[in-house]
Structures are given as structure tokens and as C-alpha cells.
């Protein structure tokens, strides 16, 4: 396995540059839904970027749009997705197919539905190697075995012959990661890769991802609802709400001093293992479905404890604020306690 020397983490040129991405779903006879609305972010080589949000935040749709995996009917995708300077959204389909898998790989939440249930793991992994790496027969099989071993699957020779249902959830997710890595991608997009797994298995998978990013110099986009996962893994974090980024910052800045009331509210509402017992939780009132349409005002306004009249007067802009970007008219003060 190739182990590149750790390059300087932050090269100036971004590997992935998402600019003003928007995704609109139109259903026949139904309302149009803007699932992703002007999302911009960059991923530099070797960087790990987190997209955090609850259901309906648009985080998964963003990743699917980047990979051009959304159905074409009833979906409009706008903006640009520059990968190495090429706009993925306008690339011919066959070139996109080459990039998918070879340069960008994706790992999904449910490993079972991402694997073909009637084909042994080994064949599925070698297939990828044969298609993108030009390996043949025995060489490909040996490479597949090595990959499985590398992602921590014990006894890979035997596992190669097994079908997906014979593997546990954690093992399946490892197999998927092995397939994603088969082509030494430069960018790995992981969409809730540990949500279906137990915590001890989750810890194994996250360690594995960390290690792989470090060893191969690939970039990682981690999509999750779990702030804890992001805190230990990502260099930069984008918090999404109702299709837009509401706050972006380095993880230390974001977790140390959340400025958007939504970020702060999320942090105050999850019980922390290391917090003194009896510390009260401060839930965010309402539910993620109680949103205001962004063109009328801030989508979070209906649930926001810091709401001003201006918040429902028009859409707040994503402003650059030194160490972060923030979409809020009345952010939390630095080091302010989150209001109960």
C-alpha cells in the first residue's frame, strides 16, 4: 500500500470548490422544494471537512449533488462544483463516471443497501480494482485481499468469498470503505458512515478513517448529525440548517465559541458524557420542520431564542467574521451562556 508522506496540510489550491450550489426538487403537482440553497465550501487536499445538520438540513443532498448522483427528473442543480478546476456539474457523463470511484469515492450510511447482496464481497472489490486500476485476475484478487486487511477485516481471504449478509454491520462498512479506497481516491465523501453502527464499532471506523486520511493524504468530507463525531475528526465544520450553511469555522472555534444560536442550541441540548451530572439540558424548542422559508427571513427564526424583528424581515447573509462565517443578525456573544 502506498503511503505518501504527509504533505503540508493546507495547500492554497482547493481540491474541491463548491460554489453557490443549489438543488431544487419539483414534484408533479406538488410544491417545489429547495433542499440546498446557495451552499459554498472548499476542501483542500488532506483536509477533513464536516457537514453537520439534522434531517432536512440538506447535507446529504449536497453530497449527492457533488457526486451527480441525484435523479435527473424533477431535480434542478445550480451553481458550480469545481474538482481540480473542472466543473463536475457540466462534465460529460462518461468523464464524470471516471472521476467517480477513481478520484472521488463515497461511503453511505447503510452498508447493506450499498452492496450487491448476491455477489461475494471479493468480486465486488476486485471489480472496482479491475475497472479503475487496470489490475487483472490474480493480481486484482491479491490487491483486494490486501485492501480488506488494511481496513481491519480479519482473515480477508475467507471474507472475500462471503456474501454481504454474512458480514456484520461494522465489517460491511469496512468492506465498503475498502471498495471506496480501492482506487486511491483523492476525495472521500462519507455520508453518515457510522450512524447505523454501535459506538464501539463507530469508534473503530472513525479511527480507520482518520488513519486513512493521514496515510493516503486524501481529503474527507464527513456528513453527519453527530456533533461528537465531528469534534474529534474534522478540521473545518459547516453547520447546515434548512438547506443553507448557517455557520462555518474551524472545529475548535466552532465548538469553543458557537456563535449561531442554532449551533449553540445544538451543543446545549445534547447531554455530554463528561458534563457534571444534573446539569440541565436546554432543548431547542419546536422541531426542524418548523422552518421559515429562507427568502422571507432566517429559517431558524421560529425556534430561535435570539430572534429579532429583523430576522423575519429578510434573509440574513453569510458574513465573514474573522475566524468564521456566520449567517445571523443577532449571534450569541462570545462566551455567552446559551439562553435557557
Amino acid at each position, binding site marked *: 500500500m502506498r*503511503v505518501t508522506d504527509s504533505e503540508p496540510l493546507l495547500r492554497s489550491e482547493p481540491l474541491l470548490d463548491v460554489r453557490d450550489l443549489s438543488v431544487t426538487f419539483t414534484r408533479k403537482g406538488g410544491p417545489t422544494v429547495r433542499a440546498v440553497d446557495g451552499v459554498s465550501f472548499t476542501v483542500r487536499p488532506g483536509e477533513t471537512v464536516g457537514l453537520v445538520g*439534522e*434531517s432536512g438540513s440538506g447535507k446529504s443532498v449536497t453530497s449527492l449533488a457533488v457526486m451527480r448522483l441525484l435523479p435527473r427528473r424533477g431535480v434542478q442543480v445550480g451553481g458550480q462544483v469545481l474538482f481540480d478546476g473542472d466543473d463536475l456539474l457540466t462534465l460529460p457523463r462518461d468523464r464524470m463516471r471516471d472521476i467517480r470511484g477513481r478520484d472521488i469515492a463515497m461511503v453511505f450510511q447503510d452498508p447493506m443497501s450499498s452492496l450487491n447482496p448476491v455477489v461475494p464481497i471479493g468480486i465486488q472489490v476486485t471489480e472496482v480494482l479491475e475497472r479503475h486500476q487496470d489490475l487483472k485476475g490474480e493480481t486484482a484478487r491479491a490487491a483486494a485481499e490486501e485492501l480488506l*486487511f488494511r481496513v*481491519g477485516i*480479519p*482473515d*480477508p*481471504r475467507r471474507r472475500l468469498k462471503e456474501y454481504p449478509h454474512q458480514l*456484520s454491520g*461494522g*465489517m460491511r462498512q469496512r468492506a465498503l470503505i475498502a471498495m471506496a479506497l480501492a482506487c486511491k481516491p483523492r476525495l472521500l465523501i462519507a455520508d453518515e458512515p457510522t450512524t447505523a453502527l*454501535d*459506538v*464501539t*464499532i*463507530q*469508534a*473503530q471506523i*472513525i*479511527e480507520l478513517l*482518520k*488513519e486513512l486520511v*493521514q*496515510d493516503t493524504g486524501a481529503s474527507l468530507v464527513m456528513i453527519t*448529525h*453527530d*456533533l*461528537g*463525531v*465531528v*469534534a*474529534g475528526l474534522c478540521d473545518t465544520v459547516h453547520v447546515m440548517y434548512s438547506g443553507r450553511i448557517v455557520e462555518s469555522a474551524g*472545529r*475548535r472555534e466552532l*465548538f*469553543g465559541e458557537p456563535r449561531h444560536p442554532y449551533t449553540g*442550541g*445544538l*451543543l446545549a*441540548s*445534547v*447531554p*455530554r*458524557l*463528561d458534563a457534571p*451530572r444534573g446539569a*440541565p*439540558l*436546554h*432543548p*431547542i*424548542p419546536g*422541531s*426542524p*420542520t*418548523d422552518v421559515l422559508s429562507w427568502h422571507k427571513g432566517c429559517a431558524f427564526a421560529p*425556534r430561535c431564542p435570539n430572534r429579532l424583528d429583523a430576522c423575519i424581515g429578510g434573509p440574513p447573509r453569510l458574513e465573514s467574521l474573522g475566524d468564521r462565517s456566520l449567517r445571523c443578525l443577532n449571534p450569541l456573544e462570545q462566551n455567552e451562556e446559551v439562553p435557557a
Partner: protein
Amino acid sequence: MSDQVPAPSAEKRASADVLLSVRGLEVHFPIRSGIVVERQVGSVKAVDGVDLDIPRGATVGLVGESGCGKSTLGRAILRLVEPTAGTVTFGDVDVRALAGEDLRRMRRQMQMVFQDPMASLDPRQNVQSVLSEPLRAHGIGGDHRARVRELLDVVGLPASAANRYPHEFSGGQRQRIGIARAIALEPQLIVADEPVSALDVSIQAQVVNLLEELQDRLGLTYLVIAHDLAVVRHIADVVAVMYLGGLVEQAPSDDLYATPLHPYTKALMSAVPIPDPVVEDTRQRILLQGDLPSPADPPTGCRFHTRCPFRQPTRCAEERPLLRTVAGHADAHRVACHWAEDIEAGRILPAASAVVDPDPVREPDPQPDPAT
């Protein structure tokens, strides 16, 4: 395993404080095989000898990963799954001895809150009907409409919710309906099986707070089953950790988190991500090897020894450890590990391959010991 009743809790059981007492509980699901004539070829030992006391008015948390048997244990206590051995004593009633109408009436005292609020509500039933169903089932008269309004109010839903159907609510609201249904009969015990894990992060705290509020208001006793240690730690007074059908550690919440004694508890706690980069970057993780063994064919001796980073060449593989107290810890803190004292004192260290040190120090593993 089932006949051994640990001494410390024997006198505790006699005290009026214990609402529910479980002894040697086993739930074994038969594995049948055969084409024409089915015969039993083995059994899945989902719950395999559990002792547990739930004090009146307290919250006991039961944590463990999927497949450890925690949900089955909860359901066996409520007789929604039939235990195959052991006793369940509620107050002074032997729950396992009840049958038919007696059992049905007993259910009034013990209710359940489910994980998936959508699946646990009949999609064709409106809220009025959902909440008055328990009243009808137990022949409780009076003004059901008024009672439903009252229940809705208690769980923080408007009275207008009564005429709506489950799909018209958000996940958090549905779980409130599920909770309202559980308290409709004014039960003494509520078993909450993963009450928040299906909910959005920002909603979970609402439901946790509601459960706590109801406990204060109605004097409820809870058994909260969850895989999320942080939630359990927040809500429970006493936490029991379950692994592969048995309890491995049980302690007052604070003690458990301050000084986990069992290797599995340690690993579990170190695996829970904490939303704080400063903590995440400095903590040491204990990674477990492999997956949960099959409950149809559990390991001999200590169930955990196949994955335990502290495994010793003696005893672990032969002798099944019982829950016991450890010198220097409260009597209520009990652990099922032969080597708990040595591990705590640092005389036994975890296998180096299982320990992941904080980030900057970590180097890519050159040669993880091959299993081939």
C-alpha cells in the same frame, strides 16, 4: 447462573423501597430447524441470567450495544416476551406467575415507551382514540375527552391534537403522544426502550426533559434502555451495563462514570464521542477488536473475554464472573470481572494494540498483528 442470588441485594429486596426485582432472568429463543418435523437445535441466549433491582421512584438506566439483549430484558420484565427462567417481582406480585386476566390487569402498573414513535402508533387511529384506548381497555369511566385533554396538556401538546392523526405530527410530538399513552393509566413503572434515539438531535433533549418532569410530577419509576451512554448518564440514578445477555457492571451513575471498573464499560465510555475538540484531542481510546459474538453460541467463561483488551490467561476463559463488590467502592457498585482490582490499580494494562493515544502522537500502525 439463574439460581445464584448475590448476597448484597437479598436484604435490599425485602425493603419496601424496591419496586421491581429481577432475579436470574433468562430469555432463550429456540432455534428450530428441519423440513418436515421441526426440532430445536439450539437457542439464542438473548438474556442469560440477569439480576436487577429498580428502587421506587428511581431511574435505572440499562446500556449496551445492539444485540446485547437489553430490549429483550425490558420486554421480558413486561411479559411482552416470555422469560424462560427466573423471577420478576413487582411490589409483592410475582409477575411471571400471572396469566390471562390477572396479567392483563397487572399491565396497568407497568407501561412502555417505544423507540420509534411512528411505528408504535396505529396510523389509522387519531390521538383521541390512541389515548382513550387504555382507559377503555381497563374499564375506566368518566369523561375520556377531558382526560385526553389533560394528558395532552401534561406532555405539552395542544388540546386540538386530539383529532389529528399520527402522521400529522413531527417525530418529537409523536413521542410525546407515546409518552401520554404510557402515563394514561397512571402506572408505577415505565420501561422506556430507546425513547430518544429515533429523534433529531435538537428534539432529544425535549423528550428527556419531559420524562424527568413527569417523574417528579407523577412519582414514576423508570427503566430507561438506551445505547447512548450520555443520555443514560444524564437521566439515570443507577446504570447497569449489559453485554451479551448479562450485566457486567452496575453502579450509581456518578460512580460508574467516575470510576468504571469493567473493561467493557471503559471501552464503551472511551468510544462515546464528546462534542468538544479539546477533550477529543486529549483523550485516550480503548478500541475493541471485532464484533459481538453470537448469542446463540456465547463464549465460555467471561462473555467479554474474546474482545477484552485486559484479558488474562487464567480464569477469563473458564469461569463466568458474577457481579460483586470491589473494595474501595460503594456496595452499590458491582462489577462482573475477575480482575477488576488489578485493572483499577494499574497492575494489568490493556493490550497496546487496543489503545489509541491522542492524535498528534499517533503514528500509522506499521504492522497490525495479522489474524491470518
